[in-house]
């Protein structure tokens, strides 16, 4: 393991990207930060800029309007970074498949600009905070 990977896994700072979610996944992500789960005790911190982030938490189908923004956010995140795809919509567009505004799913969009991207999936509608934490732990432990 090179030192970059070691640093990435040590204390992953995450940036939250909503690309057209119904806000339910976002609520569950924020829930992870509340006192009951309190992921900050594990060094996972929500930051306000993708340039400070080690990981992106992406929720929602990628809408036409959000597509260039998601690309830009991914390009501005320092590499290596992990993309966590949170929720059924982000993982595979879910019930919005073939919708007129849908350009997703997220992994397709990310792989278009970076085929080597590290992508982890947390399905669920919405995934429970336990599932999100479990997904993050499992993804980081196999890196």
């Amino acid at each position: 393991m090179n030192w970059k990977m070691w640093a990435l896994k040590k204390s992953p700072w995450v940036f939250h990207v909503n690309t057209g979610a119904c806000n339910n996944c976002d609520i569950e992500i924020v829930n992870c930060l509340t006192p009951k789960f309190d992921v900050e005790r594990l060094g996972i911190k929500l930051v306000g800029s993708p340039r400070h982030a080690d990981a992106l938490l992406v929720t929602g189908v990628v809408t036409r309007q959000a597509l260039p923004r998601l690309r830009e956010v991914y390009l501005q995140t320092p590499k290596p970074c992990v993309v966590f795809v949170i929720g059924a919509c982000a993982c595979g567009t879910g019930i919005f498949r073939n919708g007129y505004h849908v350009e997703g799913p997220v992994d397709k969009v990310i792989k278009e600009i970076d085929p080597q991207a590290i992508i982890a999936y947390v399905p669920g509608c919405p995934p429970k905070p336990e599932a999100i934490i479990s997904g993050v732990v499992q993804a980081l432990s196999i890196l």
Partner: protein
Amino acid sequence: MNKQELNNKLTQVKDKLIAIEQKVDNRIYLLCEAQNAYDVNKFLFEDVSARFVIATGIDDEDCFEVLYHYSYDRTGCVITIKAFIRDRQQPKIQSIAPFLPGAEWIEREIHDLFGIDFPGHPDMRRLILADDWPDGVYPLRKDTSRPKPVVSVPDSSREVKE
């Protein structure tokens, strides 16, 4: 005003309506043509003082429908004005936003998605479609096919580097 009085009151606009349908006890439909919809809305809002809830657009293949839903909270009755727009080429219906500002955004949304024009609307800008969405393509019309995906070539000078 109880149920009976409400029903009596609604008969005042009967000449502007095609029909009054009452499917269940607390659900009344007022069917009218598009050109009478403004007057019926104004009557329901100002004379009956029903509360405007939302409007709906429907593509019925041979015509467009705009449904204005009102709630008459004293009896819990929901009154829906069903306005038929027969002209599919240039669908338009008088805006109710001048006397009912709460209808502004939903009329903009219906305009975005169905291309129904609302003359008299104070601010008919695009509301919910993407900024690069082509003009004149109305996604919820039955005869609209999906427009081409966004054409954008990722900038090769900005390759992802570790």
